[in-house]
């Protein structure tokens, strides 16, 4: 049974033979392959290495907030929130009076929710830059601290040496 299942799978790739002398001569083995750039196929689907958020039209969803280079995120998010509450109330009314027409209202609510999520996702690059700023600031802080420490220690060492010279001279 074991030999049957073992024979049905293909053997692993034979690259291990290239590394037989690696411990004695690291240059005899091929270098690692360079990282993939651009688009690459994986299990039949195509992926890309560029991280970009697809716009709403690319996903086939109507964009409710105005387009343009600078979007006032806070204002748009708050107005979308108000729209959402109004639509929920509308849905409640429709369910009371004309229950068979719920579908359009539910679609509107889901449209608003998708727009909200898309706005929040488009805030992530901003967050990434803010994180980078924070990291740079803390690194500068640490380096300044290290410079101060080294200066202090050098001065202490100089002082000790001078003292020891004085002691030796006075003897």
């Amino acid at each position, binding site marked *: 049974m074991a030999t049957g299942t073992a024979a049905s799978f293909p053997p692993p790739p034979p690259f291990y033979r290239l590394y037989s002398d690696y411990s004695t001569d690291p240059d005899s083995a091929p270098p690692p392959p360079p990282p993939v750039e651009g688009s690459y196929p994986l299990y039949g689907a195509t992926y890309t290495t560029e991280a970009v958020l697809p716009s709403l039209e690319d996903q086939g969803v109507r964009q409710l907030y105005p387009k343009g280079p600078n979007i006032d995120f806070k204002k748009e998010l708050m107005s979308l*929130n108000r729209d959402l509450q109004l639509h929920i109330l509308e849905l409640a009314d429709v369910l009371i009076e004309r229950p068979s027409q719920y579908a359009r209202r539910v679609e509107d609510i889901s449209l608003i929710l998708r727009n909200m999520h898309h706005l929040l996702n488009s805030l992530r690059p901003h967050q990434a830059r803010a994180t980078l700023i924070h990291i740079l600031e803390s690194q500068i802080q640490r380096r300044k601290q290290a410079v101060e420490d080294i200066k202090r220690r050098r001065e202490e060492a100089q002082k000790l040496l001078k003292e020891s010279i004085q002691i030796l001279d006075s003897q």
Partner: protein
Amino acid sequence: MDIISQLQEQVNTIALLAVNTFGTLQRDAPPVRLSTDYPEPAANSNPTNPNPTNGDANPNPNPNPSVNPSEEANNVAEQPKAMSAALVQAAKKFDALVAALPLSGEEAQLQRIAELQAENEAIGLELQKQLEAADLEMKQVQELFNHATDNCLNLKKPD
């Protein structure tokens, strides 16, 4: 959790509350009176009791069915209030989170990053200089120490 993830969670919470509200109301809604010809359903009907020992027609309705309608009426009135209050609270929390977003322009951020990088470079060079000077001094001190110990060993005569 960072504020954008909190905002995303809040959006999902609002959606969940809305869905639960409508689902619960639709499930628990009492039947609607269609016409005045049909009587209201009797509150004390006990269909699972074919017991013939009950001579008269239910003089003592067991307490459960009579408590149920009033309890249900309370629930049906209280639930929409509680659920809509929760929905409004969630929306207010979302607004509060949006107001707390620390936003700034992209150019301002990029400029700040460039400034910080320049400062980082400068202080990196300073640190490297200090490190090299400290390394040099340490080597000198080690030399001195070696000389001193050699002299000590040479001067010390065996007893």
